[in-house]
Every structure is written in C-alpha cells, then in structure tokens.
C-alpha cells in the first residue's frame, strides 16, 4: 500500500491529533485505531469509482451526495504531488477520477490518459463559475465538453503562529527566510508549490520562469532557505501538528492548514504576503479507461455539490467552484477566509500558477530535489 494512503488515514483522526502527542496512552489508542479508520475508507467494493486525489480530500464529508446515490463511499488513492500522480498513472495505474491543478492540466491532457467530460451529465454544472472553467487549453476537448471540471481554488501562503512569530513590518515571503527562526520553519516538499513560492520571493516574474537566469535566482533563494527548514513534507498534517505544538513557528501551507488550526483555537494566521500569495485552481479529470464511468460522473457531481462546497469553504477554507456554495456565507466570513464569490478577485490578486512545459517541470523538480538534498 502506498505510504501516502496511510498518511491520509492518519489525518482522519484529525481532532484527536493534539492529544495524540500528549501521552503514550493516547498515542497507543490513536495508533491502534488508525488501521480501522483506513479500512473503512479503503474497503469500498470494486464496483465503486476510484478517486485519486490529494491527501485530505479522501473524507466522507465530500461525498454525501455520492453516498446517498450509490450507498457507499468511492475508493480512494492519495498522492502528495500532482507530478507524482501523473507518473503513477503513466506507469499504468488506472483510476476513474483524478485531481490535477491548472498548472499541470495541459501536460495531463497531452499524456493522452484522460477523456473529455460530458458536462451535460453533471447536474451541478450550470452553477459552476464560468471563469474557473475558462482555463487555457480546457476548451480543446471540443463539442462543449471540457477536460477539467474545476472543483477547488485557493492559495499557497504562510501559516504562522501569531504568538511565537514576531512580525517585522508587513507579512511577506521573507518570513520563511527569517534566520531568527532557523530550524523552526517548515515547507511543502513538492516543487509544484515550493519552487513557485521561491520564484515570488526571488522576484522572478512567472513569464520568465523558463530561463536559465530564473533557475539560478530561484535556486539561490531555495539554497538560502534550506538550512532554516526543519522538514520538507508533502503531508500537511505534519506541518499542522508542528505549528500546533510550536515546533514550527511558520510554514508554507495551503488554506486548509490555517483554517483547521484556527478551528482548534491555535493562534495562527494565514499570511497575505505583500509580494502576493501563490494562487491555483484544481479540478477533476476522468481517466480514459475509467472502469466505472457512470460513477466517475457521480464523484464529480458530488464534489461540485453545494453540500461539499460548504464544507470546503467552512472547514477547509478553500474556494469552491459552485457559486451557490457561497450563498450560505456572508461577505465578512468570506473575507475573513480570504475568499470571494468572484474567484478572479483572489486569484489575480496573487500570482496565478500557469502551465509549463514537461521539460521545465522535469528540470525544476530535479533542481529542487537536489537542493533539498543539500547540493
């Protein structure tokens, strides 16, 4: 079994996590209950759709409509970085639905592993925010179909402890390069986030990412940051736990970490860096050999539903693609979460990720992994 599947299941015991580390007894209980939790998530029968997604999206709350219709949860497989997911599927891993983001979408389409989505089969499609569908390349499916159905959107920024991190001036990406807190900073391990944030910190415009100069500049800031980082991880739970305990005072995270920690009353803030956060849209694609095509559409429809959307906004702090999901929240709540009914307001205020070539992606990953290893 993939390690990340297990990581995902540990995450399911979310609320007990702080207690988890408090003592051996609590640890013992949590550890012994973990396999049961994962079993429930993994044991859906073969005829249910398989959803290959980021860790943290493999939870029942997102699949209430699906469960109501099909009686059970879909099967889950979890990844920590979308490049890893694509490699795994190129290696022959067949799923029904997967969950790439806008920066990877075109490469996913080019891999020839996916089929266009017939939007007329989705009951919630009419409520999907059009600007999110309108990603460059998405229209090439033709016939009014799309390759990717947008699902969630948000930011990659810094979650920091307001009581432990002494802010100097404005919130900024410099916080993750602050030598005062060496060894108490954390970062996402995937270049798909970290490298782009490095580009913002280095002042490289996303138009010029694919130049030698950009690689040099970004490598330099990543090397500068590495000794300050306690650990690089794809597992957001690790970062959340470390922030909760004070082991880390600031870490690169997505919206959900800050929202979850706030719900546990940890004094954290999701920074609005003055240079701008990294913004992205993620969505759903159907595998060309999807064994349960009808249920693949059910998975997508379930994720696009307002029930799911309200959970995503309220509990995870992510934007949702269904405009009606926002109706349950007032402006003040949305602003507090850093969201808006008009995604463009948020996405364009930050640095919106964009599609890159496969060569760039490979070179970037190679460079970043080498730097993380200390070279």
């Amino acid at each position: 079994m993939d390690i990340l599947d297990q990581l995902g299941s540990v995450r399911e015991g979310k609320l007990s996590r702080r207690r988890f580390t408090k003592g051996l007894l609590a640890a013992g209980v949590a550890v012994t209950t973990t396999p049961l939790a994962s079993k429930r998530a993994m044991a859906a029968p073969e005829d249910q759709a398989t959803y290959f997604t980021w860790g943290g999206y493999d939870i029942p709350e997102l699949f209430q409509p699906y469960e109501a219709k099909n009686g059970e949860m879909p099967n889950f497989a979890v990844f920590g970085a979308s490049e890893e997911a694509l490699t795994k599927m190129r290696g022959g891993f067949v799923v029904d639905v997967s969950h790439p983001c806008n920066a990877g979408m075109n490469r996913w389409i080019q891999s020839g592993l996916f089929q266009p989505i017939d939007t007329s089969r989705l009951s919630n499609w009419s409520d999907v925010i059009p600007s999110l569908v309108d990603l460059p390349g998405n229209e090439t499916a033709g016939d009014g179909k799309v390759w990717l159905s947008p699902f969630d959107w948000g930011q990659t920024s810094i979650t920091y402890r307001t009581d432990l991190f002494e802010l100097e001036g404005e919130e900024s990406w410099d916080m993750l390069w602050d030598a005062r807190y060496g060894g108490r900073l954390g970062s996402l391990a995937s270049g798909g986030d970290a490298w782009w944030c490095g580009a913002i910190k280095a002042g490289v415009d996303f138009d010029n990412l694919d130049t030698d100069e950009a690689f040099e500049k970004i490598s330099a800031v990543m090397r500068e940051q590495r000794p300050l980082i306690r650990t690089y991880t794809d597992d957001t739970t690790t970062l959340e736990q470390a922030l909760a305990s004070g082991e880390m005072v600031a870490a690169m995270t997505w919206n959900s970490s800050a929202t979850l920690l706030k719900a546990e009353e940890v004094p954290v803030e999701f920074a609005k860096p003055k240079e701008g956060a990294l913004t992205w849209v993620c969505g759903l694609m159907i595998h060309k050999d999807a064994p349960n095509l009808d249920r693949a559409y059910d998975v997508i429809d379930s994720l696009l539903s307002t029930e799911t959307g309200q959970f995503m906004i309220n509990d995870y702090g992510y934007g949702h693609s269904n405009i009606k999901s926002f109706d349950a929240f007032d402006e003040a709540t949305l602003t507090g979460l850093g969201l808006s009914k008009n995604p463009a307001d948020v996405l364009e205020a930050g640095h919106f990720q964009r599609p890159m070539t496969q060569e760039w992606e490979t070179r970037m990953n190679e460079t970043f992994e080498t730097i993380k290893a200390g070279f």
Partner: protein
Amino acid sequence: MAETSLSQSQAQAGQAPERSLRDRIAGKLYRSEALRGYLLMSPTMIILTIGIIIPFFILVMISMWTRDGFGFDTTLTLANYFEAAEKPIYGALMQRSFWISGLATFFTVLLCYPMAYYVAFHVHKNKMMWIILMTLPFWTSYLLRVFAWKVILGFEGVINSGFMSLGWIEAPMEFLLYSQTAVVITLAHAWAAFAILPLYVSLEKIDKSLLEAATDLGDGPVARFFRITLPLSMPGVIAASFLIFIPTTGDYITPALVGGPDAMMIGNLVQLQFGPMNNWPMGGALSIALMLWICAIALVFLFLTRKAQEKLT
C-alpha cells in the same frame, strides 16, 4: 509427492519389463539426488525467476536507457553510471546511507545480543514464549512503528514532555526528531526482530560443556565469553548484520518520515527518480550501483569477520 510415486514405480518395475514413461521418470527421480533436489526447489525457483531474476534484468536494461523528455531513449549506454559516479550528490547520499545503516546495524546487534543471550542461556522454561514476546512489537505494521517513534521523539513527544515535566530540560530537544539520530534509533528498533532470531539460534546451539570446560581450565566469565561464546555465535552476528544492513541501506520510508532534510538517504533519491524527477533510467542505475556497493561491503565485512574469527579461535 515424489516419494509416493517412487514406491509405486519400484513395485511395478520388478514385474513389467516394458516400463511406461511415467515409471521411467519416477525411476530417474529415484536414482538422481540432484533431480529430486531441483524438483523440490522448483516452486521457489519459479517464483524467484519471475519475481526477482527477470525484474532484475529489466532493471539492468532500464538503467542503460536514457531519459528523453517524458519517454525513454532505448539505445543502451552506460551514461547513467558515469553520471552517478561523477555527480557529488549521488556519492554523498550513498555514503550517508551506508553510515546511517551501518550505525543502525551496529546498535541493533549490540542491543539484541544480550536479549538473545539471556533467552539462550538463562531461560529454561517456555523459551518459545519469550521469543514470541520479544517479537511481539513486530506484529504491527512497520509504518506504525515509525509513526510511534515520531510520537516518542517529537517536539511535544513522550521523551521531551517527560524530561520537561521532570525539570531535566528547559526547552524541548529538537535534535531528537528530523535528524540522522532519529533514523538510526527508528531503524535499530524496527529491525530488532531480525537480529534477535539469528543471534538466539546461534547462541542456543553452543555446546554448554565447552563453557564448563573453559571454567574448569580457569577462565573467568569475561574471558569465557570472548573465547567461547562470542566466536561460536559469530555466524549469528554476521547473519544479523547482513539481514539488517542490506535492507536498511536502501530504506526510504524511515528517513522520509523522521529524517528531515539532513538525513535523506539514497533510497529517497531512487524513489524521487521514479516519481517527480521522472528519470527511471537514473533510478535504475542508482539501484544497481547500490546493489554492487552493498555486495562489495558485505564481502569485505565477511572477510574481516573470518579473519577475526580465525584469530580468536
């Protein structure tokens, strides 16, 4: 199975001069010990061929390809091996892997020896139960054991919060988790069962009368241990060392979870080559290089222990 058909064929062979094909095969089996041996081994051999030998050759093959965009250029070349030899990152990670797993092996054997010794010499009843009790922690998943160590060594973990409540330390010790120490500790615990069992078996086999003889001839407990017990249990020590050193060198999940940036091992890099770096040929070449290095180190270790044993005995 071979034996029942053998007795039949014997009985038939006496009566009928015209023997059927089946009888002739049975007869051959009866006469040839080697053939019987191969027959007994064949299920394992088939699995070994399908599961290890063929994949190994595929790996060798892939390692001689080169990456070409997202695909592979299948002309055979040794370019990856040259790159592995030249770029400092590979050598350094390889060295670090050997260092970490060498330390882990050393401490595992050191800690498990007394346990095995105790059961072999001082437990007289219910030995099996003792062995089972000692291997009990290993009935849980490896991953859970690694996570357990994360809980123990963590910032708010059992050790840190325990020491802090006792007032021994002011602030949590950060070197416990996300360091090479953490990897060594976790590996040493996680692989203990693989050391205890071979050590126990070799200690158990030692003839107790040799120890009595040594005592009669004037050896104290310490001298007796170094002159009799240790040399005679050397096969167990060697087996335990190999059983731990070889798999831990290529381990990637332990450093990934408790290691932090400075404890990355070669296994992590191999995994990355097959994942985000998407360079399967390089990953293959690194795996093969690792295998060759382990072979070389194992041979040297074997040679040294042989020498040491000769000196001792």
